């Protein structure tokens, strides 16, 4: 078996395994490609029926700001996609309280409903993940 899979042992019962994945978003949109790339990977992950959480901290909080209008900069406005995540069963969105407040934002300024966690609560959330992917 291992010969045909390049030496990697395939586990037969992998299909039923659900792991906790957290995607950590810490960059503002548009200035770099991280935010858009993260969203692409998150959408791909939805196809694998895993337990997915999205975390927005530091400048990543800006990804969720309401009212983004990108016509004048000639880039794609991908912020409406965050509202579509629910349709892919991605419903766990967390924003770090300290990061939000340092940017003069409140939960009302955000395009989707999120759970606001303070740094200690966020630390606990990260601790319980199987896989953490940073963007």
């Amino acid at each position, binding site marked *: 078996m291992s010969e045909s899979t390049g030496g990697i042992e395939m586990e037969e019962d992998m299909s039923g395994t659900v792991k906790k994945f957290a995607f950590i978003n810490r*960059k*503002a*949109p*548009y*200035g*770099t490609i991280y935010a858009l790339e993260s969203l692409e990977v998150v959408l791909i992950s939805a196809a694998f029926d895993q337990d997915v959480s999205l975390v927005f901290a*530091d*400048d990543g909080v*800006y990804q969720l*700001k*309401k*009212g*983004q*209008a*990108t*016509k*004048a*900069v000639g*880039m794609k*406005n991908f*912020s409406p996609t965050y509202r579509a995540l629910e349709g892919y069963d991605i419903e766990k969105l967390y924003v770090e309280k300290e990061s939000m407040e*340092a*940017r*003069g*934002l409140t939960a009302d300024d955000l395009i989707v409903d999120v759970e606001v966690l303070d740094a200690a609560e966020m630390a606990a959330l990260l601790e319980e993940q199987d896989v953490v992917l940073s963007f």
Partner: protein
Amino acid sequence: MLHIVNKSPLERNAFDGALRMAKPGSTILLIEDAVYAVTKGNKAEGQLKEAMKNCSVCALWPDLEARGMQDTVIDGIKQVDYNGFVDLVAESKSVMSWL
């Protein structure tokens, strides 16, 4: 002299550097992720208002609008478009980009 900053004040220290090293009378232009520096409630607000006493502070409005921050700009910030950006460069003796 024109100082151009394109990084968020909360992610990198380019904004701090520009403000610290800009001579009174110079112009500071904030573009791309640096436009968050001119929005109300940002941690950089006090620092920015201090700089506005001695320098002309401008922000590129297409970048503010892209980020949904167009309605939260601090009073006294001059907003420019791409043509205004070119004018600032043309009328400045020298330009420094804080990458």
